[in-house]
C-alpha cells in the first residue's frame, strides 16, 4: 500500500519522547476525504500526539504519514496547508478579529480585496460578521471559539484539525457549538480530524470514531457500531453507560457462549472477544436493554433481582439492583405507568437478550 487510496494515511507510526516509552505504538489509520473523524480517548492515550504529528509539530519516531499520497514527515508545519483549531483558541490577542482571519491570507500574499472578501465570508459562516473590529478578548468564549474556527477555515485548507476545541466552554454552549461545527462540516465537506475525551461530543459529531488507549487504536468505527457493538471491554467501558459482570466461559455454542458468574448464575451471551471454554470474560450489557417483569417470553436470560435504589430522572427512573452477584447493576426504566409500583427492597424479574450481552475480554 502506498497510501494513495486514502486522503490521510498513518503507516506504522511510532512516537516516543524519551526513547523509553512509546506514546503511540504502530499506528495505522486511513481517513477518506470529507470524513469527520474523531480521536477519542483518555488523557495520555496518544490521541493529541497523533494530531500534533499530523499538524507537523511533532515528528514520528518511525513510520510515515501521507497526505493525499505524499509523505509529509519532512514538510514543516507552515507548508502543510492544514488548518487547526487549538484547545484555548490561540487567537492572537494583539490583532482584531479581522486581522486574525486575514493573517493566513496575508502570509499567502493574496490581494487585499480578496482577503477582505474571504474574511467577510468566513465571519458570516460563523455569524460574526459584525464583530470584525473587536479584539479577541472583547468576545465571549463561544464567540472566540467561532473566530478560531473561521480562522482555521478561511484559507481553505485541505484538512482541519481540532484539538479539544470546546473544552473551555460551558455545557450548553458546548452542545450548541457541536451542532454548528457539524453543520459547517456538512456544508463545506472538508475533512476534519477532531480530538476529544468527551464521548458524547464524539458520538454527536463524527462519521467515524477512533478510540485510543495506551498508544493504540482500540476500535475504529461509526458511532452506532461503537456503542452497540464494542469490540473490547475498554471500548465498552469508555463509551456510554454499561453494566459489567465478571465470569468464566462455560460452553461455546456457535456465535453464542455461556458465561458462569462467581455466584453460579449462567448467562447466555454473544461471543465477541473470548476464545474458548475456561476464558475469563467481562460481560457488557447496556442499561436500556434490560427489561423489568416482562411477560414476553423471548429472552435468553432471566434472573431475579432486588431493587437497591431508585433515582427519579424525569423521563426515566434509574434503578440500581443486585443481580448475578453484582449490586451496582443499573437498569433504565422508562417512566410509564407499568412500573409505578417499584419500591426499594422489592424483588423483580430482570430479562435480557443474548445478543445484547457481549462477552468481552477480561484482564484480571
Amino acid at each position, binding site marked *: 500500500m502506498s497510501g494513495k487510496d486514502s486522503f490521510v494515511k498513518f503507516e506504522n507510526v511510532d512516537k516516543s519522547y524519551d526513547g523509553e516509552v512509546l506514546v503511540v505504538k504502530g499506528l495505522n489509520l486511513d481517513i477518506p476525504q470529507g470524513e469527520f473523524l474523531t480521536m477519542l480517548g483518555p488523557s495520555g492515550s496518544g490521541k493529541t500526539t497523533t494530531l500534533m504529528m499530523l499538524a507537523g509539530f511533532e515528528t514520528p519516531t518511525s513510520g510515515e504519514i501521507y497526505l493525499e499520497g505524499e509523505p509529509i514527515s519532512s514538510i514543516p508545519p*507552515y507548508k502543510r496547508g492544514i488548518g*487547526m483549531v487549538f484547545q484555548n483558541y490561540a487567537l492572537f490577542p494583539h490583532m482584531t478579529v479581522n486581522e486574525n482571519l486575514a493573517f493566513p491570507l496575508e502570509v499567502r500574499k493574496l490581494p487585499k480585496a480578496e482577503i477582505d472578501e474571504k474574511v467577510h465570508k468566513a465571519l458570516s459562516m460563523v455569524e460574526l460578521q459584525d464583530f470584525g473590529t473587536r479584539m479577541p478578548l472583547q468576545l465571549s468564549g463561544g464567540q472566540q471559539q467561532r473566530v478560531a474556527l473561521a480562522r482555521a477555515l478561511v484559507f481553505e485548507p485541505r484538512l482541519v484539525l481540532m484539538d479539544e476545541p470546546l473544552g473551555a466552554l460551558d455545557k450548553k454552549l458546548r452542545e450548541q457549538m457541536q451542532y454548528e461545527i457539524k453543520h459547517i462540516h456538512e456544508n463545506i465537506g472538508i475533512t476534519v480530524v477532531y480530538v476529544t475525551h468527551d464521548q458524547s461530543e464524539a458520538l454527536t459529531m463524527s462519521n467515524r470514531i477512533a478510540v485510543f488507549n495506551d498508544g493504540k487504536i482500540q476500535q475504529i468505527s461509526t458511532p452506532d457500531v461503537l456503542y452497540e457493538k464494542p469490540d473490547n471491554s475498554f471500548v465498552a467501558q469508555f463509551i456510554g453507560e454499561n453494566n459489567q459482570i465478571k465470569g468464566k466461559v462455560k460452553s461455546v455454542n456457535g456465535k453464542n457462549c455461556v458465561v458462569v458468574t462467581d455466584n453460579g448464575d449462567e448467562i447466555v451471551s454473544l461471543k465477541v472477544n473470548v476464545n474458548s471454554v475456561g476464558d475469563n470474560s467481562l460481560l457488557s450489557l447496556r442499561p436500556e436493554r434490560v427489561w423489568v417483569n416482562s411477560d414476553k417470553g423471548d429472552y435468553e436470560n432471566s434472573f431475579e433481582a432486588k431493587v437497591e435504589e431508585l433515582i427519579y430522572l424525569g423521563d426515566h427512573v434509574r434503578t440500581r439492583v443486585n443481580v448475578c452477584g453484582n449490586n451496582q447493576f443499573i437498569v433504565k426504566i422508562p417512566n410509564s405507568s407499568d412500573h409505578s409500583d417499584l419500591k426499594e427492597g422489592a424483588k423483580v424479574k430482570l430479562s435480557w437478550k443474548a445478543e445484547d450481552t457481549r462477552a468481552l475480554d477480561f484482564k484480571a
Partner: protein
Amino acid sequence: MSSETISGPILTSDGIPLKVSLKKAERINKIRAFLLVLPLLAFILISFIIPIGDMLTRSVDDRYINTVFPKTFEIYKKWDKQGLPSEEVYKTMFIEIGEAKGFKIGKASTRMNYSKSGWKSLIKKSQRKFKKIKEGPYKEQMIAVDKRWGDPIYWKALGEMVDPTTFGYYLNAVDLKYDSNKKVIAQPENRRIYMHTWIKTFKVSLLVTIFTLMLGYPIAYLLATLPLKYSNLLMICVLLPFWTSLLVRTVAWMIILQQKGVFNNLMVMAGLIADENRWKLMYNETGTIIVMTQILLPFMVLPLYSVMKTISPSYMKAALNLGASPLHAFWKVYMPNSIPGISAGGLLVFIIAIGYFITPELVGGKDGQMIGNWIAYHLKTTLNWGLCAALGSVLLAVMIVFYWLYNKIIGVENIKLG
C-alpha cells in the same frame, strides 16, 4: 407599580435614608483601610515625597546669601553696572562682613564662589584684614587689602544672587548662566561641560538599553521556553551578577578588556589583530557601555521573562499552522505580544543607566563620565547642593517627559512585569 419608587430617597427599616446609612457603614471600613495603609503612606512621604520636595526647593533656593548681605544687595540693585560700585555699596559690604558671625560668612562665601571663583578666599582674607580698617572712606582701603575688590567682575558676579530664589543652578546645569543684569547668557566655551555630559548620558543609556535588549531577548526567550531543569540553570547564570559585588565585577572587566588584558592578548595570539593595534575597550565610552550592559542585563531579562512566560506557546504554533514561516510568525505574533516586557525592561534599564556613576567612574576613563559623576562630585567635593539638586531635577524632568512620551506612543498600560 407602587408609588414608593418615585417618592424620594429609599429608606432603611429604621427610617434613615439608605444612602446615609450606607455611608455610615462604609466610613468605618474606610477608616480601617486608611489606618492600614498609614504606615506605607508615611514611609512614602518620608522616603520619597519629602526628599523630592527638598531637592526641588534647594534647586531654586537662594535665601541664605540674602540673609547675610541684605542691605548690600538692596543698594547694589541701584548700581548701573558701569565701572565700580559706589562708596555706599563698599561701606555696607564692609559693615555686613564685619557683622556676620563665624561660619555664616564662610557659607555665604562658598555661595559667592559658585558665581565667581575667588570670592571664597577674598572674603576670608578680607574678614581677617578688615579689622585694621577703623573708618571710611572704605573703597580705597578695601582695594588696598586685596586688589580684587577693585575688579568689576567680582561685583558683577553678585548680580545673580540678589533674589531669594534663583534659576541660576538650572542654568548652570545646561551650560548657561546669568550675567550681572540677570540676563541669561552662555557659559564660556571651556566650561561647557554639562550639555555634553547630558548628551553622552542619554546616548550611553540608550545604547545600553538597546544592547541589553538585544542580548536579553534571546536569553529571556530561552528561559521562558526551555524545560524547567535547564531554565533554572540558565536563570542562575542570569542572576549570578546580582550576587557578586559591583566592584568585583567591574575589576574583572578591567582585567579582561584593557589593552594588555585577556581579550586583547587572545586576539593578538590568534593573529586577528597586530600587537601594536590592540583595541581600546576599557577606560573609554566603549568600556562603560560593555560593563554597564552586563551589569544591567538582569533588569532587562527578568521583566521580559515574566511577560514571555505568559505568552502561550500555542500562538506560535497557530501562526505556523496558518502558514507563517518561523521568522514571520515570531515577528508578527510573538514579538508584539512581548512588547509589554520590552517596555518594562527598557524603561527600567534606561532609568537605572541614566543615573549610573560608579561604573563610569571606574571604567569610563577620559570620556565615559556621565551626569551622575558630576552630581557625585558636586555633592561631595564642592558642596554645591543647589547645582546637584538642579541636575537631579532635570534628570527627574527628563524621566517624566520620557514617561509621558512613552505613554503617548505605546501606553502605560502596556508595561507589564509579569
